[in-house]
Structures are given as structure tokens and as C-alpha cells.
């Protein structure tokens, strides 16, 4: 995964960048399977690797396929990234070891979910019962966010009379409107 990320930094052909990001998502999905998060892996493979890549390819079709070489110096970003990374790694030294059953995150609530959710909800998949029942409002909020994003996309790319359509120059669109009036 780190290799794909570095390749994305170096490459200038945006098409390969997008395909690499799809591969990156797929690798992430297989990592989730190894970490026993099967539901997350399923979502990442379909939504992350599938729909995102598709959306980005559609954008590339409308815009350009090559990135121009940047004139800016990379010294400042590099130093910021290295300092931040060092601080974050220092922060991880306090974290519980990977796979520890007594980590604070694994002590509360979870026992109850594991013992009771089968009886209370009647679904064997604990993730589903938490998602749809115990944290139902959270999921409602998520759908509101998606709805808002959909409205935003429609407003930005809308095909109404008063909108400039993607792929047309603004000036032409304005002229057409004046002709119609």
C-alpha cells in the first residue's frame, strides 16, 4: 500500500494515478479482511474501489489527463510532513499493542453488544445490528450527509436553463440564454 501511495506522488499521468488509487482501495479492502472487518472490506471494495474510481475517471474525461509540472519548491511541504510524521510516531508509542484484548477501546460496551445483541435484535451479524439499531440515528445522519452532497453535486452540475453545462464555456452558455430570451 505504501508503494502505491509513493507511486501516486511521483506520477504525472492522472489516468494512472486514478487507477493506482483504485488498486490502493482494493489493497485496503484485503487488509480489512485480514483484520476480520469483513463488512468494512465489502463496503471499501464496492464503494471505495468501484464508485470513487468511476467518478474520478468521469472527471478526467471532462477535464485533462496530464498534470503540468509544478514550479513550486517541495522543501517546505517535505519538512512539514516529516515533522508531523515524527510527532505522530512519538504519539503511537503510548498506544496499546496491536491485538491487545485489554486495550481501553475494547473494554466498554462491547461485551454487552456481543452478549445481548443476538437476543435483542435477532441478527447474527453484530455490525449490522449496531449500525441499524443501536446507532440508528448515526446512520440517519449519514444519509442526510449523502443527501446534502447529492444536492450539492446537482446544484453544481445542474442541467437547468440557468446553469452552465459542464464542458461548455461560460460565455457561450450566456449567449445562448440571451438568444432564448
Amino acid at each position, binding site marked *: 500500500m505504501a508503494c502505491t501511495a509513493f507511486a501516486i506522488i511521483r506520477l504525472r499521468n492522472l489516468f494512472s494515478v486514478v487507477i493506482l488509487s483504485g488498486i490502493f*482501495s482494493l489493497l485496503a479492502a484485503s487488509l480489512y479482511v485480514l*483484520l476480520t472487518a469483513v463488512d468494512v472490506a465489502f463496503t471499501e471494495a464496492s464503494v471505495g474501489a468501484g464508485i470513487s474510481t468511476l467518478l474520478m475517471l468521469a472527471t478526467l474525461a471532462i477535464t*485533462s489527463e496530464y498534470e503540468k509540472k509544478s514550479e513550486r519548491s517541495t522543501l517546505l511541504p517535505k519538512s512539514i510532513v516529516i515533522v508531523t510524521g515524527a510527532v505522530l510516531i512519538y504519539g503511537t508509542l503510548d498506544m496499546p499493542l496491536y491485538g491487545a484484548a485489554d486495550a481501553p477501546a475494547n473494554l466498554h460496551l462491547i461485551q454487552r453488544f456481543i452478549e445481548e445483541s443476538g437476543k435483542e435484535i435477532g441478527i447474527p451479524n453484530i455490525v449490522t445490528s449496531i449500525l441499524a439499531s443501536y446507532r440508528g440515528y448515526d446512520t440517519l445522519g449519514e444519509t442526510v450527509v449523502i443527501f446534502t452532497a447529492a444536492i450539492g453535486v446537482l446544484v453544481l452540475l445542474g442541467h437547468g436553463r440557468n446553469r452552465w453545462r*459542464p464542458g461548455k464555456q461560460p460565455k457561450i452558455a450566456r449567449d445562448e440564454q440571451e438568444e432564448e430570451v
Partner: protein
Amino acid sequence: MEFPGLINYWIVVVLMMSGFYIVISQGNFVKKIVGLNIFQVSVFVLYISMSKIDGGAAPILDEAIKNYSNPLPHVLILTAIVVGVATTALGLALIVRIKDAYGTIEEDEIIVQERNDS
């Protein structure tokens, strides 16, 4: 220290920093969005690593299994993935509009155009 130790978290930091680097150093907007996605995935991996318990099975109830991974981070990340795609879609729509308005998706060229206009 035995093998897995904290290595998962260090990989997360490396991924997160490469995403961050793409966002702040590259001028192309599509590439910035890809960088944001990498950053996002690194946060997901952080949460999922925290939820893993040694010998724990996937959180699907079965009589024979006593030890499960922590299902709560899985739920949070499921929500986050879907919201992430929604924000990606919005960002890409903005890029299409920027292309319409300026004829380019390079940040440097847009700054030059703005300077010439004013």
C-alpha cells in the same frame, strides 16, 4: 517487542503523511482529491487495527466462537467510508465547475489568472 507490536500504527502514519504531502505540495486538483482519499483510508486502517483482538473472529455470532473482534469501530468506519465517497463526489463536481470557469485544473495557473484579472 514481539512482531506486530506497533508496526500497524507506523504504516498508518506513513500513509497519512504521503496523503498529506500530496494535498499540500501538488498543484493539480484531481491529485489533491486522490491525496485526501489516501489520508482517509489511513484513518480507516488506524480504527480497524484498533478493533482487532488476537484470535478474535469476525463479529458474526456463532455458538462455537467465544472471541470476537470489536464491532464498534467497524460500524463507525462503514459510515465514514460512505460519507467519504459523498465528499469526493462533491469535490470532483467542484473541479468540473473550476474547469468550466478557468479552463484549467492547475492551482498555479488559476492564481496567475486571478492576479491578471485584478
